[in-house]
């Protein structure tokens, strides 16, 4: 169907002018991109469309001739997804080409009704496909963003910190699911080996709910640490969570649990043969007690 290509080529300037005018009226986001940039993009897209129609025909979007147009539209829509355009705005960029294109077809083929209808249909089909392509690229860009954020969140939220020589702490923030438990477990065990720590305190103050599954994940981590020769203490058990654990019948009897991280640290220090003493200068210090740690 080279008629469409001919019409577009002959009326290119007019189509582009009308298209830009329409876009400026309805959907230009001057807060997100400049007018010059929009014009540049429109020109490039129109040229690519002309090339696609000429070489591969208006319906075969996977054809070679459409490569440039496909790449261009994917690039434009993914960059717009990052800039914060809405899906409607991104799809309308392509769909708004319909009106100027249709008026050009009407001017050229007003004598023959049947031919006019056929050409309009072909043009509609072509532009719809291009719009779908654009939307798909938009969604793909958004999904990639979400996946990357998830990954970052997972890595960020599981630090293992050293509290004292031989004592580690693992503050868990957020819900524990299977994939996170895996990351947490590997992190903790690796740090136990590299720092040669005998005690690990798992602080669950930041875990919103503890159900049987979360408890099972915790127990797995504790068992693995025990197999390596380290001892785990769970701290930060809130009153509601203590009630939930008992109501669900979760057996934590083999695990040491404490209400506060400080209690757990005190226990770990005591078990490793250290005691905390108040310095005699404490009375004069305005900041409160200056503690010292005595090695047994």
């Amino acid at each position, binding site marked *: 169907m080279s008629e469409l290509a001919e019409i577009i080529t002959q009326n290119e300037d007019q189509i582009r002018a009308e298209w830009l005018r329409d876009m400026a009226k309805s959907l230009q986001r001057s807060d997100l991109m400049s007018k010059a940039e929009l014009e540049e993009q429109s020109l490039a897209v129109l040229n690519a469309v002309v090339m696609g129609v000429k070489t591969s025909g208006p319906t075969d979007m996977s054809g070679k001739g459409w490569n440039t147009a496909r790449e261009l539209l994917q690039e434009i829509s993914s960059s717009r997804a990052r800039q914060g355009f809405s899906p409607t705005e991104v799809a309308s960029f392509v769909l708004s080409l319909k009106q100027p294109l249709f008026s050009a077809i009407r001017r050229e083929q007003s004598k023959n009704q049947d031919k006019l209808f056929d050409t309009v249909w072909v043009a509609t089909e072509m532009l719809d496909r291009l719009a779908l392509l654009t939307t798909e690229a938009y969604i793909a860009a958004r999904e990639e963003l979400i996946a990357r954020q998830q990954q970052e969140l997972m890595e960020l939220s599981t630090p293992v910190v050293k509290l004292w020589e031989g004592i580690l702490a693992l503050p868990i923030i957020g819900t524990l699911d299977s994939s996170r438990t895996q990351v947490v477990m590997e992190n903790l065990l*690796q740090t136990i*080996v590299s720092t*040669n720590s*005998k005690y690990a305190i798992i602080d669950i103050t930041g875990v919103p709910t503890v159900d049987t599954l979360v408890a099972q994940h915790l127990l797995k981590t504790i068992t693995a640490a*025990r197999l*390596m*020769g380290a001892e785990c203490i769970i701290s930060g058990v809130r009153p509601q969570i203590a009630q939930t654990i008992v109501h669900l019948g979760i057996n934590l009897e083999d695990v040491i649990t404490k209400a506060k991280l400080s209690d757990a640290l005190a226990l770990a220090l005591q078990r490793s043969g250290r005691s905390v003493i108040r310095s005699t200068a404490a009375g004069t210090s305005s900041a409160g007690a200056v503690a010292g740690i005595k090695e047994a």
Partner: protein
Amino acid sequence: MDRIPVLRMGSLLLITIQVDMHDKLALQLQDDVTQRISEWGSTGVLIDISSLEIVDSFIGRMLANIAAMSRVLGAETVVVGMQPAVAITLVELGMSLPGVRTALSVEAGMELLFGATLGFKREAEDEFGEM
């Protein structure tokens, strides 16, 4: 290598597993350990698995078995230096080795054993002195 060496250190047995265990090797080790405990009257068994990188359920059960058999013969068992990957695998296999004591390093394991068999500590030291 057709068997894993079992070393005698005073009243302790020292076993270092440095090759990938296969089933026959594991059974041989089980035989050797029980044999040595009764022969030398050992009171502690220290198994160093820091070079072990692959485990299956059979090896896991073998470790538990050696610990249980040693206890029957009157010796404590400590497994030391388990790698994180090995620990995770055993937990995923559902083997928490409840009767086995563990330590991070050979040093910590020795301390644990001497602590558990405190009465024999002097005896062990005497024997070191003779060697």
